[in-house]
Structures are given as C-alpha cells and as structure tokens.
C-alpha cells in the first residue's frame, strides 16, 4: 500500500511538472519536455493498473486511451485555438472508440456525431469569424499555470489512489449482488440487439426524463435566439451611426 502511494505520488509530481511545461507560458519553450513528462506519468499510471486479461483487447484499449489522453493534452497545450479544437476532435474520436469498446455502441457513435459533428464544427465557425488571424497574444499566456497544473495533477492522483486502493481491498464489495457471467452480459449490455434494448429502456423507464430533456432543448433554443437577437439592438436604438 505504501509503495503504491509512493509510486502514485511520483506519477502525480511528474504529471504536474509535465502539465506546467505544456501550458502556454509566453515565449518560454518546453512543450516537448512537457509532453515527454506527461507521457512518462501516464505510463507509470498505466503500469500500476491491472490489464483487462485479453491481449488483443488490451492493445486496443491502450491505443484508444493513449489517443484520447494525448490529444486531450495537446488540446490544452496548443496556442492556436483552431489547433486546440482539432485536437479536441481527435480526443472525441478516441472517447467514442472507448465507448464502443465498453459496449456502448450507440453512445460511441452519438458522441462523434453530436460533439465532433455539430458542437466542434460550430465552434470552429465562431473561431474563424472571431479570430481569423489565428493566434492572439492572450492565447500564449495562461492563468496561474503552476497552480492549475498542480491542482489537476493532485485531483487525478487522489482519484487514482482511491480507485486503486478500493479495488485492491478484498473486504470491499463493490457489487452486492451475485456476479453475473459472460452469458448474461451478452444478453443485456453486449447483446446484438443493442439499440432495441437501449430504446426499450430509454422510452419506458426514462420516458418522463426524455420529455424533460426535449423541453430543455426547446428552452435552450429559444434562449439562444433571445441572446443573439440582443446583439444588434444597440445599433438600431443608437443615434451615433447615421
């Protein structure tokens, strides 16, 4: 246990240092060092968690997780916001892949369609409208990079410690009911008729929540139009422009 704390502490410290090097800090260079340090910290973390017990699956998982996390790091490291957005898109593809891997086929595809297809593209449009020159001076600076990197690394370190120690403790029963076997998993979450099961669950048990979510979408739509409609009003009312 103590050894685990020491290793995780080391990984946290390396991650904090790597994040600090990665964040934009004026003219100071060192992104390559930061990427290397962060990759080392991720490697240490990966070496402490048990594998999933099936070699091809493990390789696929590590590739997907690596793509997701490294492009997430690139998102916060790149100074040009357009590059950040594109790296975020790659991170989303990795997340979608991880969801597919975890048996959430619909969610994997929906994440790619909704986030990468709609949200990200819309924000790229805004970036092109607002900042066509690419990089502004304020993009080369960050707020309190040392404190931010330390906070993030400490949070990750603590969460990892909790997760690892809970799973290593034999007294803790995470699943009170009897463990299911692979056949049950194949019939429910990993069934061939994934969409049919998902739809049946969504539109029976969660029907009210679906209605509420629809109302929320409508309210957001109306609110957005109301906010954007205010932009032009001062010019109509103002007398300074003939």
């Amino acid at each position, binding site marked *: 246990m103590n050894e685990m704390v020491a290793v995780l502490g080391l990984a946290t410290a390396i991650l904090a240092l790597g994040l600090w090097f990665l964040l934009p800090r004026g003219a100071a260079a060192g992104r390559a060092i930061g990427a290397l340090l962060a990759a080392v910290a991720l490697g240490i973390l990966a070496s402490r968690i048990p594998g999933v017990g099936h070699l091809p699956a493990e390789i696929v998982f590590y590739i997907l997780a690596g793509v997701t996390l490294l492009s997430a790091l690139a998102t916060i490291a790149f100074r040009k*916001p357009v590059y950040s957005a594109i790296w975020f898109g790659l991170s989303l593809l990795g997340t979608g892949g991880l969801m597919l891997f975890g048996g*959430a086929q619909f969610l994997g595809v929906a994440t790619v369609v909704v986030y990468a297809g709609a949200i990200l593209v819309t924000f790229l449009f805004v970036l092109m409208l607002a900042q066509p020159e690419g990089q502004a001076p304020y993009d080369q600076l960050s707020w309190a990079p040392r404190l931010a990197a330390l906070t993030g690394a400490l949070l990750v370190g603590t969460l990892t410690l909790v997760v690892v120690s809970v799973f290593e403790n034999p007294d803790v029963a995470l699943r009170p009911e009897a463990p299911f076997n692979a056949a049950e998993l194949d019939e429910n979450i990993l069934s061939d008729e994934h969409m049919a099961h998902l739809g049946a669950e969504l539109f029976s048990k969660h029907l009210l929540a679906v209605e509420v979510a629809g109302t929320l979408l409508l309210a957001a739509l109306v609110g957005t139009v109301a906010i954007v409609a205010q932009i032009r009003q001062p010019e109509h009312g103002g007398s300074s422009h003939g």
Partner: protein
Amino acid sequence: MDEQALLQNYLIVGALLFGIGLVGFFSRRNMIVMFLCAEMSLQGVSLSLVGWSRYHNDWGGQMLVIFILTVAACEAAIALAVVLTLFHRSGKLDIAVWQQLREDNQAAFVDRDLVELERRQQVRWPTLTPAGIEPEPDLDQDTHRTHI
C-alpha cells in the same frame, strides 16, 4: 475479460480526462478553448459512467450519458450565443476583458504578462527618412470601394 480490471481502467482514464479538462479550464484564457475543456471534463464523466454500466450489466449509466449529451448540446448552444455576444462587445475572445464582473472584494487583475509579451513581440521594421514634397491626398482613391 476481467470486468473488474476493465472498470478500473475506465475510471482512471475518465479521471485523467476530467483532470486535463479541469487544468485547461483553469488556465486557458480563450473563451472557446475554456468551453472545449469543460466539454472534455464531461467526456471524462461519461467514460466512467459507461464503465460502471458495463460492470453492473445495467443500462442506467448509458441513460445518464444520453442525458449528459443532451445537456451538453444545450450548453453548447447557449455558450456559443454568449461568446458571440461578448465578442461583439469587446472584439476579443480573452476572458480577462470581463474582469469587472468579479466580486467586489477582489483586487483588479493587472495584465503585466500580456504587456510584456506584446512589447517583446513587437517587430520594428527599418524606415526611410521622409524626403521631398508631400503629395496631395487623393480623396477619390481613398474612398473608392470595389464592393460594399
């Protein structure tokens, strides 16, 4: 596959994604990059939920992720509208422009780093000494527009 190890892997990847998003949200100054980092944190939570859903062989986690996606879409629409409004007012995507929205007891933030950076990056091109007669300004040429 070892389901318990799989859940552990998903939880740790989710925690890392959440942490990276948090760091980005805390430290970046561009409003759009801040928004993208907030979305990244949501992705981290979604991954954990998918892991739990698989572990318990239950659809509850995936249902929650569907609603996270819905709320994220609403949030994106509103954030886009707000960012556009703020950009129209200030002409910048910098969040520091809006520091007058801070609490009353907070000291004003003086942007020394930005001034220093702009001073350092200013390029001084060589100039020639002005000589000869200054030409009459051509008003037609100055006000001509190829298109409106």
